[in-house]
């Protein structure tokens, strides 16, 4: 099972600022290991962010997003105590969701 994401969601004026650090190898499928064998591709393809169930951001990623991806975005219509949930899906079909309260 993958490690949890680190998510910070902070209300700033009428906006909520979200910063996320995900834990993922983001293997491109182009790299070879010490024995010369190609390391199979394994990367996040989809990221969805919601606030109290309402979708605020969706993203499609390729293998060239950095390992242990960082993502920051901001949205209106959120307030302290709201639940911000981030979900990613990778090439192996694995999925992970983590949720924080807006602070």
């Amino acid at each position, binding site marked *: 099972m993958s490690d949890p994401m680190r998510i910070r969601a902070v209300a700033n004026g009428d*906006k909520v600022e979200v910063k996320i650090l995900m834990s993922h*190898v*983001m*293997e*491109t*499928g*182009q*790299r070879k290991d010490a*024995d*010369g*064998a*190609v390391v*199979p*591709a*394994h990367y996040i*393809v989809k990221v969805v962010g919601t606030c109290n169930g*309402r*979708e*605020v*951001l*969706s*993203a*499609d*990623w*390729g*293998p*060239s*997003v*950095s*390992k242990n*991806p*960082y*993502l*920051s*975005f*901001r*949205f*209106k*219509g959120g307030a302290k105590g709201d639940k911000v949930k981030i979900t990613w899906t990778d*090439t*192996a*079909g694995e999925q992970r969701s983590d949720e924080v309260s807006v602070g």
Partner: protein
Amino acid sequence: MSLARRTFLLRLGHTGLAALTLASGLLPRFARAEEARPAFMATAVADALKALGVGNPAKSDAISFKAPDIAENGAAVPVEVESTLPKTRSILLLVEKNPHVMSASFQFREGTDPYVATRVKVAESSVIHAVVTTDDGAFYTTRLVKVTLGGCGG
């Protein structure tokens, strides 16, 4: 052929066979892992945009695109894009010199700022395109990032 090279090739042969055996057992997993989205398979910026249905973006000063001029580590180049264009729908990031140019696309819902910050891999010194799609067409701006250490290592 030097002895070292011969030993290496021999070892390569063995691991290749082992990998094949392993792969056959895990075939469904690998089949799923294969990239099937045309935009992410494109090797040229124009092809990736065409696959996304984005036609001929116009150069715009209304896009703020922050990226370092020189990146010491191509494996994690910080990029930040903000659009002041009305009705911005999405922001796309494309790295011209990467094996596959398409890096990421972000779609904004009503109320979400047309802003994103992330980190991308840049294989070698390259022009990076930030493309913004709006209800009134597509726009772009570029930044040249010089990489002193490649991003291929992941």
